């Protein structure tokens, strides 16, 4: 149950350009940069941060945020990015852009920057249609196909990708209608496929089917379907509004030209035949087969396609690419790099939560190299609210509110935010709704295939990131969102990325790993909210759950009894440490077994909130009586400062 503070654990030899820290942890060579401009282009907002060397250490010099402009009316991601950089120039007095170009390297007068890196999530997820390869297209997928699809979904859990299993109708239907045209079934199925708008196809077979290869009937149907889908995509390329252009804009072609990437994981001896049968509209790529014990080949293939099909298709990407010092990284990948680094470098079990506007990531990394990434590519705090409402439903969302809300008011709120995703919560009621929806977004990410918090015995560090958490007006609100969803057991540290920089630090490490480390440790990029003690076990509400004694380093002592079902906060400031002794009730466990008392092996750290005792039980169960539940929610918020 002991935890280490970052102050204690972080070696102090991380000078700029050295090979220690994140570089060593990630195996990335270090490089000397006096200044690094890092951008995170999200689907709604673009965040930029300027890191520079001050007295031999990297510091966060300034940050700014502006709306992302990938879509109309601007249709160029660099417009919003430049606006954010101009804001940085205003704050710092340092010129970084000249005639629409990034000034690089840093000039002798202090203008310009040495490196510019970008994390991107603006393009949305890569939709992959996994084609069922068993015969009988007019029937639904069989059990083998469904199992294989679940494995595929697990393989891409850490990527902005969405795999959907589809069954194609028999090819004969494309010519079975009157006058040799398609029949109605074919037309309807193709309409559904166009609506899915896949940007890649996955052709996979399991077991014996792999030896036999994909039947010509399937490849024939797929070849015909690709023609339909590709012509649609050329009319609606990933640049929205391309068919709604103003006169001055480039006219998109109306003719099918683009090739659809097809990931083929079958036997290599069938590759050539497949390529021939699918014709010129398919770009077939052989990949190793994937299985529950070997997910990496598919993960790598889909991740690479996401970069090619989605990131590079973002309007303005090519101009942006000309400015960058390193290839761009998907924000989820960048964030997961940071979480893995924290786990390895500090020897801790770490969970990182990033609630974005359209996607939510929960990255779990263990001290022994365990890594369980989970990205819900469609559930987020703005554009992704529809998915939350559909999947969680009114009752689950409303359970987090201290007021009654009708289903129609909730639907109205969700739809308003989907239609106008930049809207900020104006009233406290709207803010509470946003936080309730964010909780359910995290739960949905945790339900993704492969996301298992229980894999790790305990969590040492919980890191919250993303707009909803970072911009929560009170730290207690962010802390409660993390505790309500992650529900740690035993002792953990709560950390909040208050400057929205964490998702960029992984990509910063690709040009200068030391900068990422020092920005993390020097500038409260990760703001320590406090240490949380979470006893678990069963007791009646209001019964004593835990006695604890806090021995402050200055000799003060404090003892407290905490009731089951409550949260308590004990003052322990950000720079304070204390020794902690826990005396759980007979049925309550603090990590050493029911009723076993425990004393921390090392001093625990304080934080902005302090020492939090979360004695609400695990799993957290909210009272069924709505009036009592609302009273409890209000009480917990008041205690923790939310």
């Amino acid at each position, binding site marked *: 149950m002991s935890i280490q503070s970052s102050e204690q654990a972080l070696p102090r030899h991380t000078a700029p350009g050295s090979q220690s820290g994140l570089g060593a942890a990630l195996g990335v060579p270090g490089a000397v940069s006096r200044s690094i401009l890092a951008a995170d282009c999200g*689907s709604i907002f673009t965040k930029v941060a300027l890191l520079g060397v001050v007295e031999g250490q990297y510091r966060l010099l300034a940050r700014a945020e502006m709306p992302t402009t990938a879509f109309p009316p601007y249709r160029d991601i660099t417009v919003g990015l430049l606006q954010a950089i101009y804001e940085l120039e205003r704050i710092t007095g340092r010129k970084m852009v000249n005639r629409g170009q990034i000034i690089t390297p840093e000039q002798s007068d202090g203008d310009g920057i040495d490196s510019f890196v970008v994390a991107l999530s603006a393009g949305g997820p890569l939709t992959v249609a996994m084609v069922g390869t068993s015969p009988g297209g007019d029937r639904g997928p069989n059990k083998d196909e469904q199992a294989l699809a679940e494995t595929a979904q697990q393989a891409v859990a850490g990527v902005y990708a969405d795999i959907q299993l589809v069954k194609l109708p028999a090819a004969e239907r494309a010519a079975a209608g009157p006058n040799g045209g398609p029949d109605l079934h074919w037309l309807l199925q193709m309409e559904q496929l166009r609506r899915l708008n896949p940007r890649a196809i996955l052709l996979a077979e399991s077991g014996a089917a792999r030896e036999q290869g994909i039947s010509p009937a399937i490849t024939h149907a797929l070849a015909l379907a690709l023609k339909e889908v590709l012509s649609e995509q050329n009319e609606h390329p990933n640049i929205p509004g391309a068919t709604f252009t103003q006169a001055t804009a480039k006219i998109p072609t109306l003719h099918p030209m683009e090739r659809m990437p097809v990931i083929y994981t079958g036997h290599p001896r069938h590759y050539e035949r497949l390529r021939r049968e699918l014709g010129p509209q398919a770009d077939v790529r052989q990949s190793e087969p994937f299985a529950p014990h070997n997910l990496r080949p598919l993960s790598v293939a889909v991740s690479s396609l996401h970069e090619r099909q989605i990131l590079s298709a973002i309007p303005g990407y090519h101009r942006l690419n000309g400015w960058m010092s390193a290839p761009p990284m998907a924000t989820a990948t960048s964030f997961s790099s940071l979480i893995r680094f924290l786990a390895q470098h500090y020897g801790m079990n770490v969970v990182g939560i990033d609630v974005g506007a359209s996607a939510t990531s929960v990255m779990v990394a263990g001290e022994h190299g365990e890594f369980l990434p989970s990205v819900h590519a469609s559930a987020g705090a703005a554009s992704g609210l529809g998915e939350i409402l559909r999947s969680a439903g009114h009752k689950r969302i409303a359970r987090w509110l201290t007021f009654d809300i009708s289903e129609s008011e909730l639907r109205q709120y969700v*739809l308003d935010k989907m239609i106008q*995703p930049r809207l900020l919560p104006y009233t406290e009621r709207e803010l509470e709704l946003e936080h309730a929806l964010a909780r359910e977004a995290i739960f949905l990410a945790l339900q993704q295939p492969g996301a298992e918090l229980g894999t790790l015995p305990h969590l040492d560090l919980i890191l919250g990131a993303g707009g909803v958490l970072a911009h929560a007006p009170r730290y207690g609100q962010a802390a409660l969102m993390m505790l309500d969803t992650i529900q740690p057991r035993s002792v953990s540290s709560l950390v909040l990325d208050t400057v929205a920089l964490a998702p960029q630090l992984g990509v910063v490490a690709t040009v200068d790993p030391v900068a990422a480390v020092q920005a993390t440790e020097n500038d409260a990029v990760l703001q320590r909210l406090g240490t949380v003690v979470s006893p678990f076990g069963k007791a009646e509400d209001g019964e004593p759950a835990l006695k604890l004694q806090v021995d402050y380093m200055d000799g003060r002592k404090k003892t407290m009894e905490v009731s089951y079902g409550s949260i308590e906060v004990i003052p322990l400031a950000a720079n304070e440490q204390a020794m902690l002794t826990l005396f759980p009730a007979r049925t309550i466990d603090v990590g050493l077994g029911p009723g076993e008392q425990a004393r921390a092996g090392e001093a625990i750290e304080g934080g902005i909130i302090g020492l939090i005792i979360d004695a609400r039980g695990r799993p957290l169960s909210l009272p069924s009586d709505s009036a009592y539940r609302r009273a409890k929610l209000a009480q917990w918020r008041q205690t923790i400062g939310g």
Partner: protein
Amino acid sequence: MNYPLGWPVIPGITVRRERRMDRPGAALVQPGQQVQPDEPIAHINPLGTAGSAPFAPARFGAQTLRAGLRGHVIEATPRGVLIEGFVAVVQGLIGVGEQVVGELNILSKEALKVPPDMIPLARGVILVVPGVLTRALLEHASRSEVVGLIASSMAVEELEVALGLDLTALLDGLPVPENPRPLPTLLFTEGLGDHPMASSTLALLRQHGGDYALLSGDTNPRRNRRPELLISLPPEAQPPAVKADPRIINGAIVRVSNGEYVGEIGQVIQTFQRPQCLPSGIHAPAVFVRLERGVKATLPIYNLERIS
């Protein structure tokens, strides 16, 4: 920022739009050719001769596409015809439905006071409702074979019942159930709920009663695709040149998108260098706005939409 062309209403702009065919068809026009809004430009018959598939949804039947725009043909293929024309534009926040062409008919506010069934509606028109659309009026319009409806807003529940689908799924681009009773294409200028139509929008629509227009309900907020009404302007029309700058700056006329002043219009009279605290406690970039009714308020720029 919610409107692809910058502002919700633009009195005159040159646009290019594709009249798409759901299935390959035959274009009846050539590149460079001048077309009128009601002129046939393509013919489609995906299932062969008309009536050969009696159970097929209407969209798979034989169709003749009309131009919808006055202008010249840029490109014509079996998949669509691209036309450039000079138009007045009304963009909405949300809509549903395919492109349709029709004559604009404007309902009076008085007409909304009588039972919907008693309102005489013409077949094939695009109807402008100067307020909130009710389910009863929508169904009456559908029965009257009105092809398009423009209204300020509609209650979420009523719209979902009328469409027979979950709007969140529709906006997310998920497969939605087929509606056995096809409805007119819809455009809501102010979104969902109960909001009056902005006076500038209504004024422009009234100005064009009787004109031919092209209406699209296509909406995808993730890509900022919005529904739009394009009203072809006569060649001699010379509306003021508009540069639709969406930035919220001093002097901008804005409409409030949520909170206690939702729907109100005002003018930005001061911008703040630093983020301001909202009633929710969130700190955000904000401006000081004088609303039309005289009240002044500090409002976050992300909750404002520039309208002119």
